[in-house]
């Protein structure tokens, strides 16, 4: 008997169960760590998945955490759909946060109806600007964007660190954090006295916008063509270079918006750790969501759930919070594998070549 793998789409029931199977397998694989701390894996799973949904306060927290994840996830998914490997979302986020802070600090005498759009716009433009160099290098010099966008992440983080330790150092506390932005530049709360802010609505709008562009516009069709087969797209008359450039800039802009949202909605000033890796998590979310906007939204909420749960797990069970990181990375790899398996059918075959009876 041999295992035979054929290029036949797997049955539909398999494909529908993939998310569930991925999650199960992931928790199974990571339960060892929980056991190492003498804790109960099932209890950990509960804290990760169910507890955050258990009361309204927790639920709101999940949505708060989801906001930047929606944005970075869709930024990455958009870029990947167009064949542009934008791994620089983290850096673009940082630059967006910086611009938002810069503008926000100047808005003390400006009314909110003007300050807010300026902050949002500033974040988007800064993210786009930071995405420009790698995009141009790709389009003009044919240099792979993976490395260039990655390296610029570090430069952006250094840049923020430099200004936070320099001109923007808080004069009172001397900590590396900027002064607070003007009150008019702060994103309004969606639910009074909660942490849920305008950024969440903006994120939903962006996701909707991306969905529309990808499925209903000619630009969306063109960029997908470029993402699937760049040579065929060029042959069909699509201006590949311009399309890639636009995809890169839009993706960067969305990432910049994520940065602005974190500053104006959560922290109100710029800090070193404005992003605990949202840019990289965005890659996980985009992959989990199979690059389509609905999937990405669900994946973002799921990761938001896990992020919220991780704090509880750490508090209640003593397992370090990094378990959440390991969980997410494992989920990414497992999902990657599952998504591929859905294009194959595995069966057992009798050995060919047995002597004829």
């Amino acid at each position, binding site marked *: 008997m041999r295992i*035979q793998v*054929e*290029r*036949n789409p797997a049955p539909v029931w398999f494909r529908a169960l993939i998310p569930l199977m991925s999650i199960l397998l992931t928790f199974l694989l990571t339960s060892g760590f929980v056991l190492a701390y003498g804790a109960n894996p099932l209890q950990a799973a509960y804290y990760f998945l169910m507890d955050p949904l258990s009361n309204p306060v927790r639920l709101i927290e999940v949505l708060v955490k989801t906001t930047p994840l929606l944005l970075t996830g869709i930024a990455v998914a958009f870029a990947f759909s167009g064949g542009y490997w934008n791994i620089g979302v983290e850096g673009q986020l940082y630059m967006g946060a910086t611009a938002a802070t810069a503008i926000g600090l100047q808005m003390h005498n400006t009314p909110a109806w003007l300050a807010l759009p300026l902050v949002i716009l500033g974040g988007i433009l800064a993210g786009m600007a930071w995405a420009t160099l790698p995009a141009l290098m790709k389009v003009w010099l044919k240099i792979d964007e993976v490395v260039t966008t990655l390296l610029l992440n570090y430069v952006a983080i250094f840049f923020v660190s430099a200004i936070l330790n320099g001109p923007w150092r808080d004069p009172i506390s001397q900590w590396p954090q900027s002064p607070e932005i003007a009150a008019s530049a702060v994103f309004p709360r969606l639910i009074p006295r909660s942490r849920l802010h305008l950024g969440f609505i903006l994120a939903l709008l962006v996701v909707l916008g991306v969905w529309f562009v990808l499925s*209903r*516009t*000619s*630009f969306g*069709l*063109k960029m*997908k*063509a470029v993402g*699937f*087969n760049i*040579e*065929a*797209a*060029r*042959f*069909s*008359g*699509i*201006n590949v270079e311009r399309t890639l450039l636009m995809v890169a800039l839009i993706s960067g802009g969305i990432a910049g918006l994520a940065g602005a949202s974190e500053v104006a909605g959560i922290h109100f000033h710029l800090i070193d750790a404005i992003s605990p890796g949202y840019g990289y998590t965005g890659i996980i979310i985009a992959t989990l969501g199979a690059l389509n906007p609905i999937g990405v939204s669900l994946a973002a909420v799921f990761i938001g759930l896990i992020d919220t749960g991780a704090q509880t797990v750490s508090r209640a069970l003593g397992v370090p919070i990094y378990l959440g990181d390991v969980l997410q990375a494992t989920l990414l790899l497992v999902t990657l594998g599952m998504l591929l398996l859905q294009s194959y059918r595995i069966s057992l*075959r009798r*050995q*060919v*070549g047995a*002597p*004829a009876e």
Partner: protein
Amino acid sequence: MRGISKRFGTVLANDRLDFTLRPGEIHALLGENGAGKTTLMRILYGLYQADEGQIYINSLPVTIHSPKDAIHHGIGMVSQHFALVSPNTVTENLILGMTRGLRLNLRQAHEAVRAAAAQFGIQVEPEAVIRDLSVGQRQRVEILKALYRKAKVLVMDEPTAVLVPQEVEQLFSSLRSFKEKGFSVVFISHKLQEVMAITDHVTVLRAGRLAGEVPTKDTNTNELARLMVGRSTFGMTRKSDDEHKALPALVLERVTTLDNKGLPALKEVSLAVRAGEIVGVAGVSGNGQTELAEVLAGIRPVTQGSVLVCDEDVTNATPQAMMAAGVGRIPEDTRANVIGQMTVAQNMVLEKLHHFSQKGTLDRQAISRYAETLIEDYQIKASPNDPMRTLSGGNLQKVVLARVLAQKPKVLVVAQPTRGLDVAATEYVRSKLLEQRAEGAAILLISEDLDEILQLSDMIAVLYEGRIMDMRAAHGATPHELGLLMAGVQKG
């Protein structure tokens, strides 16, 4: 090989096939494209596993799991797209998989290769890099590779597809001398003349099934054609050409360009195609045809010269501009130049999205309607929402043809239009080209299939090493003459 069956998804590529090869025999495996010949031989070579059936060597059943086993049993394969590593030398390619121990003694290896070349009478230069070799030379390396591994059976997959008539003769004499030495050859082909000329025995496959098996001396081309396609002749006869002195619709004036490596690919190519005329560009692959098609498609710039369409200068125009000027382009490798993951409808409108969108938004109903119209007009066996990659070769080509011809182009640039297609699809494509010619289109036909060129063209130009060797009327041109030109021999 007995009772071999192999299925790919829903396609039954081999259906209980039997195939017998005797020592010292050149055995043709004949069939049109898609009949299952290559699949059967890849099973023999261990690249595929049969679903049913059994292979016997010297009457003993054997199992062949991989090429390693096949080589062990003395089977060698010369595939259509050579299995050679181009930046490596001939020797490095030959010894691949045959090295003992970790260390490579290149000098010793070169000597061994030289000795083997002498032994089998094949001329190769061990230290040459594959990238620099001509197609004929590469084929020789492939053959030597098989013999070096002590193959007693040589499987050759469409070996003459890339050769000029003179090189075909050389190959045939090599094969005859192998026969004398006791080797056996499986000669996969769809070319009846060659099968009659060189082989001893013919096995004909049709749509995955065994259609017939005869000794060559007992049969003829008509009979073989009947077995192959169920009719005794195929192909269409051209109506006599009428002499119209129409104006040139497509003019290339001293076009020069470089290939991807920066080497000259086209050298001062000048051509003119009149409305209602088919100019065939003949030549062995690798002599500039790809670059010529790319220049006219707008995806390769020229370094010198100009291109005019109906007196409009379109030199270095973008693909969009080319299409706007009335140029319809059929790409050389259709499957690679369509978006497989997108639907048929999407592929059909991709070249002119602005017609189907208002303010950037797609008019999906219009796209559907358009696709349905084309599917009906061109008898495409697919529906608008089928992913393009699920289409057969013939239907794929029809889609591309449909989207191009629906624009009523003034000029058609067509590269290898029937490569890999079965007879029915081939006929369809060729009849459509003739139809366009009758309607006044100027057609530039670039094809490595000399028969196709002879059959369809009014004028024939031969491309060799980027230069047009000669341009002459098709009427009265012979394969022999053209073969000389294709091999670079100028008329004295």
